[in-house]
């Protein structure tokens, strides 16, 4: 019989390897290059003692500032759902913020993002990949390769797998996963395909309140991303 290492050596070796990988010192955070990935703005850790303090608004300037921006969302948090960004410390914590309150000033990019989330089929949470300067946005086919916190594999979403919207110069892709990074690729669409359609613009804002007068152009929907059936759906309510 060929001699070999014994398990009493192997098992501690594997534990040592796991401990080394798990407990290794965090590497210094390098500055993220302009446009290479979503800009992540750290927030101070808020650990309120006593009554809850209002959360600071999440900086979603990357929606208008950066070429590629990834924003996380959760439709069941808060009263209207919340959006957030990954914390910069690399520990996968998402800083949620109730930026969707209509009293806060909303930039045009954020309104499109809210409407895109509402127009998607994502039930609970996910992320929106915003790509500025997307040439021929509505007449292109878009695909995404992404790394997510929900699965260790890299995922490839073909054009037919994606929910995408085009604004004037921005592509918004709504993913059902929390993306850490994403690479977006473009090809010309095939308009000879009888099932082909232009990529639509985000839908108009919706209002869950049944008494809301949709015929009044002066009234603005509440701009939430929460599901209107949340109160009547026991599965969503207890999720």
């Amino acid at each position: 019989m060929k001699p070999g290492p014994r398990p009493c050596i192997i098992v501690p070796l594997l534990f040592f390897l796991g401990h080394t990988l798990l407990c290794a010192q965090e590497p210094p955070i390098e500055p993220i290059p302009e446009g290479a990935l979503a800009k992540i703005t750290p927030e101070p850790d808020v650990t309120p003692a006593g009554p809850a303090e209002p959360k600071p608004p999440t900086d979603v300037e990357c929606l208008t500032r950066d070429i590629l921006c990834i924003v996380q969302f959760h439709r069941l948090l808060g009263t209207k759902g919340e959006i957030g960004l990954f914390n910069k410390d690399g520990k996968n914590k998402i800083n949620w913020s109730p930026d969707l309150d209509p009293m806060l000033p909303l930039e045009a990019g954020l309104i499109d993002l809210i409407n895109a989330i509402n127009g998607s089929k994502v039930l609970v949470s996910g992320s929106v990949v915003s790509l500025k300067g997307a040439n021929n946005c509505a007449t292109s086919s878009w695909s995404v390769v992404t790394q997510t916190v929900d699965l260790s594999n890299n995922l490839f979403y073909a054009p037919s797998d994606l929910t995408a919207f085009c604004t004037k110069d921005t592509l918004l892709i709504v993913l059902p996963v929390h993306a850490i990074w994403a690479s977006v690729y473009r090809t010309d669409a095939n308009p000879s395909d009888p099932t082909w359609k232009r990529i639509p613009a985000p839908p108009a804002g919706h209002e869950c309140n049944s008494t809301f007068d949709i015929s009044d152009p002066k009234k603005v929907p509440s701009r939430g991303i929460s599901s209107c059936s949340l109160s009547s759906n026991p599965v969503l309510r207890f999720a």
Partner: protein
Amino acid sequence: MGIQPADAAWRFTGTISLAPSASATKATWDVQIYESTRWGRGWVGLQAMYEHDRKLADDLNSLTAGLTYLIRVKDKYPFWGCWAEKDAFVRGKNCNPQHYVNPPLVGIRPLEVMVRGGPEWSPSAENTATGTQGIYMPKDLNLVMGATARLPIIISPWIPWHYTSVRKDDGKWQKTRQAPQPSQFTVVPVFGLEGGLRVDSHPIGAPVGLVVVSLAPECSSPPSPPSSTGPTGLCPSHSQLVPGRLYTCTQPQEIFRQVAGVDASLRWPYNITKSFLGDRPITLDFSYRMRWLSYAEPFYDDTYAATNSKTSKTDTLPEGQSSGERSYARITILFPISAYLQLRTSWQRGSLPPLFQNVGNLFKLGLAFSNPGSSEH
């Protein structure tokens, strides 16, 4: 919050297999589940597979499961380094400066290190010796841990029909490269170690008790007489088997394997039938593993001849054990029919732990069900 959008993490695969040389059509199915989520600096996951066959003799009825933890070294960027289209080798943050314009010509993803641990519940193969049909090998239970390192290399070559002419603002036409499939060719070298213990194991040769009368071709070297082996002792290696001797051998308690291999994938989108079959690519997968066993482990191969101690007739010796090398290769072609259904054809050769049952040249044709959002290597 309980519900997470991890639908892409669940993968159900059902296969209907056709074996042309068999007397009866086989129908096997298996279910594979892999669920993982980010934890700490990596991803913790649960992997499970169950295999079943409607024919009792082919029913592996095996369940393997394991907890995994995967870490990518420096995974802040999609690529650790790359050779872009017009540039020399650059590091990760410079690999995608223009985003969606082009994938790099050659990109190296971050190194993946996976630690895995879990039970191996070995399948129950039928004893094919004369007079023993219907007698199944007892199942074994092993606990195995392993560590594997993988380095995915993504290649997106320049293919002429991936260029398209675009009219610029000045009215001139210019050819630009497109990426209908961002990663067309992937090569992933794999290295690893596996070690563990046998919790429950059956004696090799039981319950039949076989006498070796001839040896497999690779074991045809003159055997040396075993010194301390006997009817109930540890089995000698194949090169030490002695014709005419009865063997019923216990298995070593230790398990240690060194693993090396390569995974490769070629993806090709539908060019002509895209309107009918969608934009998911045809995928040709190749996988090869070589395992070097430090301790003897069972094998199941009906090419070994022996004499049945009960019938005194020359018969096959389907089971034995040895150390040495065990290889396994698989080629799979996937034809996506829709986002949820794929036509799957595969060819396999070699053997895999825990039973190391030699599959010969196994050809399978089946259907696979999966989720949208295919996994990229």
